[in-house]
């Protein structure tokens, strides 16, 4: 384990401006959030805060069927349409396609076209004021002829993507195994629930182009979508990020659609149009985490070594492809968990159903499969009479181990360290021993009918659970090489140092970390580093702000650019950069460095065979959760969580902790309360009153341990942190529930109904499986849009 913490292979530690915090936990000094004062005084401008003179208000007419033929858009002739703009598919100047991996999703369903999901966009309206807009919406009727929908992803014959990963000889290994365990795990939709809803404002240009400003993660995804859908060139389409109130993947692909709609209305109206979703529309229509059904068959030895894994993953892609193939790919690659196993077969497929499209959400396919893998392993440990800690010690990846794709883990492998650090800090073994005796004491002593665990003395059972996870850092496979992203650094003629990237701030700290890294590389104060706005008219395509890649990849590009800039200036002036760059700028004029991504040395992946280095490095996380379960109600209180996370060199401890704490709570919500219920393919709980996320009182006390196993392929040693904590929280909570009650919850969320069903042995109490849609007789109605 010593090599995990050694720093000799990495560059010198990042030195930042010392700031001391007089209260709170001790931590390293770090610069304050750059846009913090603006956010704290109300000065920061989110899309809906922008005043655009003369702007109209836009709205989307959506389907109320899950699957139907779009027959007619009926505009009430009694309504005064003179001050309303209506846009249908026929008004689309470019291709009626939302640019993405596959060209399957229309911007608007054309008349006669196939409606593929509930809440699918059919037409658009804009009006000068909200009252007229509301009245116009009521004057629109949608006529549609219902078609038979498909809701179960296992029944669908339309496959978006399928992968198979194989290593060794699983069949021979199963035959030789001492014991074989099988398990099925199911997870449902999860809503990103950024607190700022989707929002875009489109302003038409005099030259036929359009500028769209809004809430988004990926300016160049929106840019591509505008070019394709509106038939514009690079300059005609301009995308500007407004302050963005959270994304979590939910503003990765969907904003392209919102921007297209706003731009179409603006084009036809000849004036700016605001397309601001309310919460109901945002939950009803936008992407969710993919539901998944994961089956495990695991061969082990008596002493708990994994010798064979067979894993089948089925993901529900929803009605259109979106980013599903990439989500599924990450899911397949992470499905076995961070464990050595010589004989593996992983089969993963994602299919189409008539539900709203699923897409990116923090973790991107990994949380689903890691919940399954960790719960399976915990159940095996229980069956073998092993501690969850010990079974992991026997199997966990160490340096030199090989993954199922044949990737040799050469460095930066901190799985064992995060495991030990979390278990030790949480006193995992001591608590577990205490709960074991409590469970034995309670067993069979239930005094309340239907609640075998409830005794006159004990209404609450306590448990502790452990999970370990891994998360591939940055894009999967050759994604980064194919993208070839560019980040730029400019010394202006006026002597300003300016960062130019498309990497967006959405709360995670881009606007603080990137200047911090550049300031360090140039040895200048962070205050001297400017950051250009995320505006496609000015910044290069440094790739999407996703996949926990910004600090690692874009930060790395900027450090390289800064080193080149520093070298050029120091060579010309003969003095240190900090003292001479002003003089250099005055005498030589501006100097801009464009730094393009170069492949990591000795890292390669074959997308066809799924062999090779799936990721340049992995981040590692362990989570120990402590819960109380109310035995009468099945209610779970997650009391505290210890999270140990390795994301390589920690650049900014406060922001890194913030990522771990926030991701952990999203995982706790996923584990316990967050669930989308469906009826005929429609989300039933499409409001914040009914889709519940944790409050401050629901949230556990979270202790974060930042472990640093630097990655030598990045100049600053950083790997990704954003998604990592999302992978381990849910299996840790479910293991804690099992520790408390003896019952394993295999479907998420572990709601009171599911827990009661499990501990009373009455499956009838349990609700529908996660992600499943209730069906009504006569499903597929024709009714007016709301």
């Amino acid at each position: 384990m010593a090599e995990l913490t050694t720093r000799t292979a990495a560059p010198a530690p990042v030195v930042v401006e010392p700031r001391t915090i007089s209260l709170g936990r001790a931590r390293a000094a770090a610069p304050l959030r750059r846009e913090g004062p603006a956010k704290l005084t109300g000065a920061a401008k989110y899309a809906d805060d922008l005043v655009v003179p003369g702007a109209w208000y836009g709205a989307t007419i959506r389907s109320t069927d899950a699957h139907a033929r779009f027959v007619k858009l009926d505009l009430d002739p009694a309504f005064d349409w003179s001050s309303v703009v209506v846009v249908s598919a026929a008004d689309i100047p470019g291709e009626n396609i939302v640019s993405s991996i596959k060209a399957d999703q229309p911007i608007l369903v054309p008349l006669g076209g196939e409606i593929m999901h509930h809440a699918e966009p059919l037409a658009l309206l804009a009006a000068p004021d909200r009252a007229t807009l509301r009245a116009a919406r009521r004057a629109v009727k949608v006529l549609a002829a219902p078609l038979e929908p498909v809701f179960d992803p296992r029944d669908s014959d339309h496959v978006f993507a399928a992968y198979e990963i194989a290593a060794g000889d699983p069949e021979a290994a199963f035959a030789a195994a001492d014991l074989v365990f099988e398990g099925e795990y199911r997870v449902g939709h999860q809503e990103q629930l950024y607190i700022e809803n989707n929002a875009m404002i489109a302003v038409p240009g005099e030259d036929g182009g359009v500028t769209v400003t809004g809430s988004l993660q990926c300016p160049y995804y929106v840019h591509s979508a505008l070019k394709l859908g509106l038939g514009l060139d690079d300059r005609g389409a301009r995308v500007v990020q407004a302050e963005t109130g959270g994304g979590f993947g939910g503003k990765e692909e969907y904003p392209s659609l919102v921007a297209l709609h706003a731009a179409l209305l603006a084009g036809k109206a000849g004036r700016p149009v605001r397309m601001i979703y309310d919460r109901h529309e945002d939950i009803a229509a936008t992407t969710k985490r993919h539901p998944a059904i994961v089956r495990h068959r695991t061969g082990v030895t008596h002493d708990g070594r994994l010798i064979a894994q067979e894993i089948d993953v089925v993901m529900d892609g929803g009605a259109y492809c979106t980013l599903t193939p990439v989500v599924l790919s990450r899911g397949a690659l992470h499905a076995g968990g961070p464990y050595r196993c010589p004989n593996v077969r992983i089969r993963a497929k994602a299919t189409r159903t008539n539900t709203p499209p699923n897409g990116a959400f923090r973790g991107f396919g990994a949380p689903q499969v890691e919940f399954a893998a960790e719960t399976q392993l915990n159940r095996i440990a229980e069956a073998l009479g092993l501690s969850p800690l010990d079974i992991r010690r026997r199997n966990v990846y160490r340096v030199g181990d090989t993954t199922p794709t044949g990737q040799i883990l050469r460095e930066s492998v901190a799985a064992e360290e995060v495991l030990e650090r979390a278990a030790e800090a949480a006193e995992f073994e001591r608590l577990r021993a205490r709960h074991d005796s409590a469970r034995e004491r309670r067993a069979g002593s239930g005094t309340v009918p239907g609640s075998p665990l409830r005794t006159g003395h004990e209404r609450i059972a306590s448990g502790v659970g452990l999970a370990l996870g891994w998360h591939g850092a940055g894009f999967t496979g050759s994604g980064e090489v194919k993208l070839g992203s560019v980040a730029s650094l400019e010394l202006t003629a006026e002597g300003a140092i300016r960062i130019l990237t498309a990497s967006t701030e959405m709360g995670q700290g881009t606007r603080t970390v990137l200047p911090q890294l550049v300031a360090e590389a140039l040895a200048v104060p962070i205050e001297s580093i400017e950051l250009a706005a995320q505006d496609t008219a000015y910044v290069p395509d440094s790739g999407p702000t996703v996949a926990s890649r910004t600090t690692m990849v874009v930060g790395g590009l900027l450090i390289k650019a800064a080193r080149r800039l520093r070298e050029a200036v120091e060579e010309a002036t003969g003095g240190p950069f900090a003292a001479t760059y002003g003089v250099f700028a005055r005498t030589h004029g501006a100097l801009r460095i464009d730094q393009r991504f170069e492949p990591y040395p000795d890292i390669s992946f074959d997308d066809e065979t799924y062999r090779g280095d799936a990721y340049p490095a992995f981040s590692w996380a362990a989570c120990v959760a402590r819960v109380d379960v109310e035995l009468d109600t099945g209610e779970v209180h997650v009391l505290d969580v210890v999270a140990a996370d390795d994301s390589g060199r920690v650049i900014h401890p406060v922001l890194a902790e913030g990522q771990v704490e926030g991701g952990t709570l999203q995982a706790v919500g996923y584990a316990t309360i967050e669930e989308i219920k469906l009826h005929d393919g429609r989300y039933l709980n499409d409001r914040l009153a009914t889709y519940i996320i944790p409050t401050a009182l629901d949230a556990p006390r979270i202790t974060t341990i930042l472990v640093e196993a630097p990655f030598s392929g990045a100049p600053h040693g950083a790997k990704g942190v954003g998604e990592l904590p999302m992978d381990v929280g849910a299996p840790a909570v479910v293991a804690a529930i099992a520790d408390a009650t003896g019952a394993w919850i295999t479907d998420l969320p572990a709601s009171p109904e599911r827990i009661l069903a499990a501990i009373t042995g009455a499956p009838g109490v349990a609700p529908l499986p996660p992600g499943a849609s209730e069906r009504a007789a006569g499903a597929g109605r024709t009714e007016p849009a709301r």
Partner: protein
Amino acid sequence: MTAYRFTANGTPVEVDVPGMRRLLDVLREELALTGTKEGCGEGECGACTVLLDGAPVDSCLVPVCQVAGATVLTVEGLATAPTRHGGPEGLDELQSAFLLTGGAQCGICTPGMLMAGRAYLDGGGGPDDLAIREAIAGNLCRCTGYTKIVEAIAMAATRRGGSIQ
């Protein structure tokens, strides 16, 4: 339409709007105080929290007719309100604590959180974890896991108590 008079961030204002117009819309669209955010429009998320005569309310649920004659404090008024101690960058002690601890991430819940925290501190709340969590339980945050928000309010409570220099 009727003219409604109230005090916003210490300044007397008069707005001529329908009485059932949401206070949230009046603040944002009539008074250009866009620091107050809308997250759900139905009183679940608390992003639109303002102080109405010192008490935290969801401004999306308050019709402006109920505000006549009252005093409204929004995030824009925090640092300039009387009796506040100045902090770095023109922030009051609570805003300053949020900045130092990392209590604001994406920032969209932040104005509402600050107002709930302000009401808690003004009510004499101390640096007690559970009491702070109860005070902000009506304000949803999806970024932070609440840890650093609680820490920020505790820091401000402690500083105000005079135990921190």
